[in-house]
């Protein structure tokens, strides 16, 4: 099974200066090759698949991720337009008020962030900040900034701009970035190119990762000072590789390249068009008919598109995303307040059968949120719940629960509904009756968080730092930790300890090792499989490889794509 090549730097600590300013795409590709070598036969086997379309679609279709030939800048058409299609629209281009997880796709071409995740999602790379260090015993995060960046309006990107942007993110009405910056109490300008984020002492180790998202966007101070809304027209507020020339909310965003751009090592097209096309079949047809250069494919259509890649009809980059299809269990509602029932749920699920039966193998069976190769991966958890119907039955009997049935809520008509139905069948085989209850997709999360549902199916994005899953799903957000038992209390302690900025990454890994082990052993959730996405693309497209930023989340950055001359 193919995996994302990992170029994790295991020695990088949150308190350490970041790596040197990243190199060109070629350099990153060389790192990817190194990681491929480290990954050993696993990846080699995938890449070596030749014409065996049925045995390993991931490997056979993932050729573009590592086998794509190097393309020099002179081989890319400088006047070309890249036409991309995605499955979700956007309503706002203001990153601070972005209200859907896919919004970064649309605002990343315009707005640079202080940091960004490496293409594999395992480490943080410099972007506008060249390095970052926790100072004053972890009470502040100091960032050194690039000195060669200007905004589209001509203003210099400096410490004052960072201060203005973070203050805007924290105070703008409707800001979705504000909660992520809650631990920052003040922003101090040290000098023109050094800024200090003063922390409230509650944590902050996750900030370098947080600043890769909308919370780390830096805007022109003039645009911030003007107070004008940026949601429909960001104008010249960004410093990114493109500026918006046309925005039709819910339909399409058209961008035009900005020259010069501080990072001239990246491939860029003259124009970039990102369209929302709801129907996956239409997106694939668009690529096949030559009307689109790249299209994002998810869900049941992935297996179909992989077949087309195998037959040579289209090119494709298959990505095992860090998006976990998971059944969340409410530990305060009977019968799921009984740990034996929750463990029985985990043993009863035949994850491999679900992956094969529902997704034709394009959903990788999993038992924990972080994949092998990530620093928060816990090896022991992978052995915890093999498919074992007998053990599940034994646990149900041992629990003594008379009627071990529950309602499983799922987004109506969404991709998770077949998974819920499959889980129902498997659980009923071990004596747990399940009623699948479709609810509006956007209601699934808040209903569970409010304790109104017994169990839900969610596709969760554990993020680039384990604090994300802790803050969004375990202790905060969805609130899986809701009991009053020693395990819950310990998880709360560990959650606080995990964001201590004075800890090294290895020390943090130990904290999250214990935390995630408790969550798994107490069976607060039942992870099922990790989604695979396909980026279907044309022969002429350049840049849709493992270096495509954000591919690991399924929400990529299309800024660095081009068309072969």
């Amino acid at each position, binding site marked *: 099974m193919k995996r994302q090549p990992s170029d994790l730097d295991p020695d990088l600590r949150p308190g350490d200066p970041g790596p040197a300013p990243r190199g060109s795409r070629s350099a990153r590709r060389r790192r990817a090759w190194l990681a491929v070598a480290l990954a050993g036969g696993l990846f080699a086997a995938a890449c070596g698949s030749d014409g065996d379309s049925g045995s390993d679609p991931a490997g056979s279709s993932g050729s573009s991720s590592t086998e794509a030939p190097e393309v020099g800048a002179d081989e890319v058409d400088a006047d070309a337009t890249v036409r991309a299609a995605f499955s979700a629209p956007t309503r706002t281009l203001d990153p601070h008020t972005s209200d*859907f997880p896919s919004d970064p796709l649309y605002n990343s071409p315009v707005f640079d962030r202080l940091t960004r995740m490496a293409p594999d999602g395992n480490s943080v790379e410099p972007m506008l900040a060249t390095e970052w260090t926790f100072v004053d015993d972890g009470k502040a995060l100091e960032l050194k900034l690039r000195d060669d960046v200007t905004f589209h309006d001509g203003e210099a990107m400096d410490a004052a701009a960072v201060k203005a942007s973070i203050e805007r993110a924290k105070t703008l009405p409707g800001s979705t970035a504000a909660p992520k910056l809650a631990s920052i109490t003040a922003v101090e300008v040290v000098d023109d190119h050094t800024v200090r984020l003063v922390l409230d002492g509650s944590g902050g180790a996750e900030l370098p990762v947080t600043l890769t998202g909308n919370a780390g966007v830096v805007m022109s101070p003039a645009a911030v000072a003007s107070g004008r809304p940026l949601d429909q027209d960001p104008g010249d507020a960004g410093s990114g590789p493109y500026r918006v020339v046309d925005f039709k909310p819910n339909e399409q965003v058209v961008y035009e390249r900005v020259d010069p751009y501080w990072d001239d090592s990246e491939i860029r097209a003259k124009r970039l068009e990102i369209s929302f096309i709801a129907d996956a079949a239409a997106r694939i047809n668009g690529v096949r008919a*030559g*009307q689109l250069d790249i299209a994002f494919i998810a869900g049941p259509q992935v297996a179909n598109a992989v077949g087309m890649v195998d037959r040579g009809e289209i090119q494709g980059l298959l990505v095992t995303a860090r998006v976990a299809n998971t059944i969340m269990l409410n530990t305060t509602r009977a019968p799921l307040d009984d740990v034996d029932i929750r463990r029985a749920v985990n043993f009863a699920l035949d994850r491999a059968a679900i992956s094969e039966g529902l997704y034709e193998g394009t959903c990788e069976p999993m038992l924990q949120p972080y994949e092998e190769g990530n620093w928060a991966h816990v090896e022991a958890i992978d052995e915890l719940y093999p498919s074992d119907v007998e053990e599940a039955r034994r646990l149900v009997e041992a629990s003594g629960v008379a009627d071990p049935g529950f309602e499983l809520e799922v987004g109506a008509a969404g991709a998770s509904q077949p998974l819920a139905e499959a889980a129902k069948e498997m659980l009923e085989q071990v004596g747990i009756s399940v009623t699948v209850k479709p609810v*509006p997709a956007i209601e699934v999360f808040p209903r569970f968080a409010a304790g109104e549902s017994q169990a839900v199916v969610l596709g969760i994005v554990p993020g680039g730092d384990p604090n994300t899953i802790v803050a969004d799903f375990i202790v905060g957000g969805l609130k899986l930790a809701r009991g009053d038992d020693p395990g819950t209390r310990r998880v709360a302690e560990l959650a606080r300890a995990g964001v201590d900025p004075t800890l090294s990454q290895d020390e943090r890994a130990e904290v999250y090792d214990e935390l995630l082990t408790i969550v798994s052993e107490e069976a607060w959730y039942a992870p099922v499989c990790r989604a695979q996405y396909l980026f279907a693309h044309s022969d002429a497209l350049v840049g849709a490889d493992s270096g495509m930023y954000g591919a690991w989340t399924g929400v990529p950055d299309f800024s660095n794509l081009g068309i072969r001359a």
Partner: protein
Amino acid sequence: MILRRLAAGVPLLLVVTFALFVLVDLAPGDPARLIAGQEATEERVEAVRDELKLDEPVTSRYVSWLASAGRGELGDSLVARAPVSELLVSHAAVTISLVAVTLAVAVVLGFLGGVAAAVRRGSLVDRAVTTMSAVALAVPAFWLGMILVIFFSVNRRWFPAIDYIGLGEDPLEWLRHLVLPSLALAALPAAEFALQVRESLTSALSSDYVATARAKGLPERQVVLKHALRNAVVPVLTVLGYRLAQLIGGAVTVESVFVLPGLGSLAVSSVFGRDMPMLLGIVAATTVVVLVINLVVDLVSAWINPRLR
């Protein structure tokens, strides 16, 4: 008579829009959360609820919308964040283009097929027309659309698989982009027209006045086109009017298959986004259009056949 017919449409418009209001209100889920977005804070969700007065009873919200609509103010789309009237105009242009080309294709194919089948009744041509019509009646437009895309866009690249170009931008590309969607959408009405023309024309051709015309020595072409077809066309016009109203509804699926930014696509995204102002605008506009179409069909039928006046 025209004013009376238009006035009779007002209660229908009220019933349709109120029914929509109630249906959307009864749908499960919290519209405030849906509109605020997945990542919105609770404060933002509550602000949206207050802004849209979602805590007020459905009747008072409806009366408030009605008062605004009466002044010609349809409000702003909650999803696209633009005036509903502007969005209606821009998206209606696409749907009107699609329906107009579809109707032209359906009328031409239907009349040609129907006339050919009627004048050679029982022949191979007749059997081919009736068989193809039966198949076309059974095939859903979206399925036919997908098949057309595979043959003519993916395999041949003769016509685009997706997207739309405005008539004003490039008339030739406008037509190229509408060929496949209009063929997919036209199959059913063309089949209906063909069968209707065949039946009406066959009946007319066996009538006394046609026998008289033939006895007078008129050429067969003149008998068919001038005498028989003129009377045969009236029932076809009724079908055409009825079908035109249905085409607007049928455009929803075809617009999705071919990614045309028309009223159908707008309606679908508005339903998923619980965009009430936009939905009301679309429903009110399409109701008015259907009322007007029915009126026009009646007037044209009466003009062609004075006995209907």
